């Protein structure tokens, strides 16, 4: 029982960050039909912003989290305008462009910061002892922040006019255009919001893990698994996929080892691709 509770808590903590990453990834795909392999680099850039502004210049961490996410939002919109716009709906070309952007951004980070693992001081330390469970306070803070961002994203998508327009574009861009939705505004907005969500994740996780130019690859892979599970382009699917992935990883890494955990996660991806290729919740 002790183990079971700890497994669930560990799993849910990871899930929230996976969802944050996957939501941005799936939003960009849903609206632009671009598989953004540079999504992990948005995470990496935000982490390096935290390193530079908090670790080196001593700025307030919480302020920097918000600033980093906003900066990534703007950066994402610029990327869309400058590099991805010609590839809307052209999945293969868009994917290659995303790979090129990803490798270039990694190389830039490598040149600027070098290959070594870097660390930033943690703003929150210590643990909560909840019965038999041990929950690090910084992970709780990350989980709570992720939850707030996810709720804000949900409210934005569900109850604002712009959110409605974005959902309309996901369903059918041509019909949405007839009703006055302007894809030229929705596309950079979606790319910006997607990058912003990854930026939030990267900035929140920067003090928890180490920071290096290739750190985006792992969360990107997780985001990919999550959207395959939930359905590429589906926002509720990303939430469900994130929870499934987090819990499965935690369960198998605790009871067996991390190698088996990774194997099981990819095994489930294979099964989903074989038997429900659209994912659990995609229509």
């Amino acid at each position: 029982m002790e183990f079971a509770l700890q497994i669930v808590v560990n799993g849910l903590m990871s899930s929230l960050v996976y969802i944050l990453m996957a939501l941005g990834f799936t939003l960009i795909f849903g609206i632009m039909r671009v598989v953004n392999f540079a999504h992990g680099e948005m995470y990496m850039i935000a982490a390096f912003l935290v390193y530079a502004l908090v670790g080196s210049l001593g700025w307030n961490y919480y302020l920097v989290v918000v600033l980093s996410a906003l900066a990534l939002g703007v950066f994402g919109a610029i990327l869309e305008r400058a590099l991805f716009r010609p590839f809307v709906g052209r999945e293969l070309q868009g994917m290659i462009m995303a790979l090129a952007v990803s490798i270039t951004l990694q190389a830039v980070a490598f040149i600027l910061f070098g290959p070594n693992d870097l660390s930033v001081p943690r703003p929150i330390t210590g643990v909560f002892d909840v019965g038999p469970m041990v929950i690090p306070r910084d992970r709780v803070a990350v989980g709570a922040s992720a939850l707030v961002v996810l709720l804000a994203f949900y409210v934005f998508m569900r109850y604002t006019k712009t959110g409605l327009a974005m959902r309309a574009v996901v369903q059918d861009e041509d019909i949405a255009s007839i009703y006055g939705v302007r894809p030229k505004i929705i596309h950079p907005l979606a790319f910006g919001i997607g990058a912003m969500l990854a930026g939030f994740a990267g900035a929140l996780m920067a003090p928890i893990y180490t920071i290096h130019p290739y750190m985006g690859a792992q969360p990107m892979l997780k985001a990919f698994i999550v959207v395959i599970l939930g359905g590429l382009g589906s926002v509720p699917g990303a939430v469900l996929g994130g929870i499934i992935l987090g819990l499965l990883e935690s369960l198998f890494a605790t009871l067996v080892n991390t190698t088996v955990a990774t194997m099981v996660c990819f095994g489930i991806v294979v099964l989903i691709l074989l038997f429900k290729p659209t994912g659990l919740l995609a229509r």
Partner: protein
Amino acid sequence: MAQTEVLKIGVVSALTGPGSEWGLAQDGAIKIAAREVNAKGGLKVGDKTYRIEVISYDDQYKAAMAVSGATRLIEQDKVKFIFGPMGSAALLAVKPLYEKNKTIAVIGAYTEKALDKDTKYSYRGFPTQTEFAGPIVKWLRSHYPNLKTVAEFEPNDETGWASQRLLKGDYQAAGFEIVSSELVERNVKDFQPVLTRVLALKPDIIELGTTPPGTSGLIVRQAREMGFKGQFVKLGGPGVPQIVAAAGKDFAAGLISYAAADTTTKAYKELEAKYAEVLKPPMNEFTVYFYDMARMLLEAIQRAGTVDDTDKVRAEFEKLSPYSGIQGQVRWGGMDHYGSNHQIITPVFVGIVKNGEQTIAGQIE
């Protein structure tokens, strides 16, 4: 009138990603030695003078990348002398190339399989766990008699497997009980699930083995946060500054590690300053070994009077024993264990982290 030509020396090692601290030690060491020689007008070999050029390829600790880098060095760059790789899987993949092409290689890699009686052109430039782990575990037994059980973490690849086998034997031989042997993928950063299971076994020691320093720091931090009050030991590659950076000063305090060098000496500080001129600091302690090896190799080339006949060069390389290294005498050894004297034997230091810095708690000859 002496001509100035170019002598190319290759590096194929982990220059980026986890473990690059150790790969960059190989890269930095030969670059420092080359810079010193070039500053003096070059390396005089026979009636020619050579300017040394270092060509480096990144293997990212991966066998396939190492093969591609080593092939390029040997076939396209026509290099006869190589430093690296550092990873065991990478080394095992490229070693046949070295032997086939008679390329003298100063290798890293902890695997026992790196050297054997048929090894002719590969020389291991640093002591491995085979040389230092047993003595340090015995030191641990006598200085910390209350510690009895060990949980070990290693990366899930050839480096980690070899290290796990060896350390298990050393700990058991010294009377410790191994309660858990974990193999973790190199890209894992969240150890909470694994630690949940491991800490339930109540180990006295968490041995970090060859886990890269940054990742070791994360394990230290996460284990301490989850209530681990025992001893951390790291008998794999060094990297205390990175461990302290990732774990924090308080959590890293008391960590006992194999220390490649006494970092407080004048010679070490001077080497650090030279490293900063060729690569971005911090310098990893392994640089000390490979700097000695670089100087030895260049001297051997000079004595052999040839940059092409690697058989003559390796004969001279082996004659340079004992050699006055920057932190004491080093010599070739390993015949009893590996069947060839291609293993460098050096003094070993036991380090303990105090106030975020590594201090030397003991020296084992």
